[in-house]
């Protein structure tokens, strides 16, 4: 089953290529670039109001939605101001980032770990602007770094993202169970991983968090070649985590591989959805804005539910 890229599903969308973002050394600047650019283009977005709590007025700028103009202020001052609302606050937003060795793979674009790093930084920055408390957990088969959610931890999160190096084998169950045990306050948890585990194991690990009342989002990050398997030369394929080598003939394997990856993704999607766990597949060639869309969509849905 072929997996369509979100980029392909949004013709005409102009987003920043992750490979271009990779040229920005500073993670905070990268996050700001992504987020500010994303927010600046939101005037056409259906997800304009993120909160009902008024925060402040801002002078109208060309491109702002005129429905947000405060006509009362206009009546008093004869100037256009728009109302800005306070976002939901006091919400924990934790990113569970898989930093196993397999996340270092990148053939078609940037390495998956970098893509996940950018994604995490952008979302953290964006969440910070939403006044959310930001936390980060990096793990492989155990927890490597744990930054508890806090409104002041953006810099720490960015710093941790900046210095982390992928390594170790991946295993979701153990670190995610630890996170579930450690997170007393409910919040939003975003799992970013390549999910090289049987769907059953993924469900068991993620569902443990759900049992704690967390709102869960799963970002499945894969390289395009992991989906299409566009390799040509027969060679020994070495597992990046276990070091196991297997002679592989790509021509003979490609179709079967695609089928199995497709089945794996569909299984995850179909199994996680009914459990109110959002699942989103990303390949590393996809602009980060899509992740923000997905995040905002989830936030909007959760807001409505609340």
């Amino acid at each position: 089953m072929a997996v369509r890229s979100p980029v392909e599903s949004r013709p005409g969308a102009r987003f920043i290529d992750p490979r271009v973002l990779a040229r920005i050394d500073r993670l905070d600047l990268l996050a700001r670039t992504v987020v500010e650019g994303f927010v600046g283009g939101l005037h056409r977005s259906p997800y304009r109001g993120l909160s009902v709590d008024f925060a402040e007025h801002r002078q109208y700028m060309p491109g702002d939605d005129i429905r947000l103009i405060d006509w009362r202020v206009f009546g008093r001052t004869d100037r256009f101001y728009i109302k800005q609302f306070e976002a939901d606050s006091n919400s924990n937003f934790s990113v569970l980032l898989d930093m196993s060795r397999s996340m270092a793979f990148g053939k078609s674009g940037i390495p998956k770990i970098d893509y996940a790093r950018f994604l995490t930084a952008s979302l953290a920055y964006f969440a910070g602007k939403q006044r959310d408390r930001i936390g980060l957990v990096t793990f492989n088969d155990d927890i490597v770094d744990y930054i508890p959610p806090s409104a002041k931890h953006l810099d720490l999160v960015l710093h941790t993202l900046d210095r982390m190096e992928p390594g170790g084998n991946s295993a979701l169950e153990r670190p995610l169970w630890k996170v579930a045990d450690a997170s007393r306050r409910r919040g939003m948890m975003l799992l970013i991983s390549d999910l090289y585990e049987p769907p059953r194991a993924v469900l068991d690990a993620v569902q443990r968090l759900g049992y704690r009342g967390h709102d869960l989002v799963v970002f499945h990050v894969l390289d395009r070649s992991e989906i299409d398997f566009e390799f040509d030369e027969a060679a020994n394929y070495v597992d990046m985590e276990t070091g196991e080598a297997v002679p592989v003939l790509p021509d003979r394997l490609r179709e079967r591989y695609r089928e199995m990856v497709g089945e794996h993704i569909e299984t995850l999607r179909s199994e996680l959805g009914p459990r109110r766990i959002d699942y989103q597949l990303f390949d590393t060639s996809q602009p980060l804005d899509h992740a923000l869309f997905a995040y905002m969509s989830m936030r909007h849905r959760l807001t409505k539910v609340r």
Partner: protein
Amino acid sequence: MGLAFLVPAFLAGALALGLPIWVHLRNRPKTDTVEFPSLMFIERIPYRAVQRQQLRHRLLFAARSLALVLLVLAFARPFFGDALPTAAAGGAREVVVVLDRSWSMSYAGHWQAALAAVRAELGALRGGDRVSLIVFDEQAEVLVESQPPSVLADGLLNGLRPSDLATSYAAGLRAAARVIADGTLLASEIVLVSDFQRSGQPEDIEIRLPASAVLRPVSVVGGPVTNVGVADLALDHVIGTEGPGLRVTVRLTGQGGAEERSVPVVLLVDGEEVQRRAATLPGEGAARLAFDPILSEQEVRLEVRLAEDALVGDDIFHAVASPGAALSVALLDNPGAGTSDSLYLERALGVGTRPAFLVDRQVLRDLRAVDLAGHDLVVLNDAGALDAGSATALNEYVRAGGGLLVGLAEMADEGVSDLLPFAVAGVVDRGGALGATLGFVDTAHPVFEAYRSPEAGDLAGARFYRYRALDPDPQEGVLARFDDGATALMHFPVGEGRVMVWTSSLDTFWTDLPLQPIFVPFVHEVAKFAASYREADPWQAATTDRGPGFHQVEGPEGPTSLAVNLDRREADLTALDPEELLASVAWSSGADVSGQEPADVSPARVEAGQSAWWYLVVAALLLLLGESALANRLSPHASWGGDESELPPRAP
């Protein structure tokens, strides 16, 4: 009947059989590695090294291997043992002794040395060897062919003598090549015993020998050679004060002398010495010597002799001299004529020797038959009036077979007309213009045949200011006419003889013809025709197998003598380097003279024994066709060697 290969080196191509096997066994899984995040989905499909190391399509492999073997065998050119001569046991040789017996071998000591060399070669033969003996001069004669040495008796050699013919190495060596080709032994050797004259090796004759043969020259020349001989003899008819005669001139050649020397030369006529001269001859070169004329009206036998030296054959030269043809011409002048009237005519007739014209100039007065006897031709050059007796004598002379040439000019009158069937009319004066020219010449007639080609002479260049007209103008026998149609030259028969009439003068009074280059041959041809002169017929058969000397043969006019001399090329003893002769020999295949390879027998015979490669090639092609069909059937599987059932189970 054994199997052998003409080009066994091609058998090395069979090593190519091991190449696919070697590649097959050397084919190992590639060691390139690709890091992949997880092998969870990757089926474990190894290279199936075990399967690939086994021959999967044994029939296909066997077909290909067999085709390759057949091609290798075809290129190696197999032949069967009876296609070529079989080797005798013990490395026996076919020794062909080629002995030069040309007459130059009669040089003092050379023939004895040659026989000694042949005996030495025979003595060196081993048991099992076979010997052939060929003697040659201009032709070769196989005296003994491929016989055991014991067959060659010494008496055979003692009975051999040098011949009278010249040397031709090609004749001897070609005969040797034939003997070797017909032989049955692998090793062959040609022993050429000769004095190695350079004259025996013409440059344009190719000598081809079997590549397997060894040519070994044996020279019988022990040291420097010296020789003096008569190379040539020339005879010239001369008219001396005492009448016609023969002048003998000889050319002498000297070789090997250190300095100039005086050589006595003797001339013998019919076996008797008539003259003796001494010629001065350089050490290395030639000289000419002329004898005094010999007066003879009969056929004579001439011999020129030198003192005998080491090579006797060229010390004597034979010749036969016949008196030759000479025409006696009676030139009759008018009594009142000056000496210059017939000057041009007399001088023209005095030139040449074939035939020689013996001019007897007389004054026309009371001519009698006795005055004309013995002459072949009578010329009346503007002779004037003829008395009756003279006219009668001339008439009888012509009727008896004599020739008469009449030149009509100023003095011609009726007396002459009595001899002619027409009247001599008046003088035609053409001096007012540029003069007359000859307008018609019968170039088909022997008199003017020489002028047929444009470059032979321009008869029209002569100018005629006056000439006599004839009445009536003759229509037959006219050979030339002037440009106005008047007769210039004509003839008619009288009895056994012939009369020719020239209507202008034969001096420069009426014409400038005597000043033209064509005058001398014109006079000669007219005189010869008028005198009914005929060249002697050439001998139809002048060859003889008898030696030098004089021989009586039957000619068309009865028995006559012939002189036979030895070929003078053979007298040139200039030596040829035997290595040069070896270098000029073309070998039938390759240049290997080691004698270790099989003898090169007739090409058809060899080729017939090597035709097996054709069958091998055809079989290989058929096999390859079958292999192609088989490979096409197996190709979908043979290309990779696996099927779906061999894949590992799908990953969970």
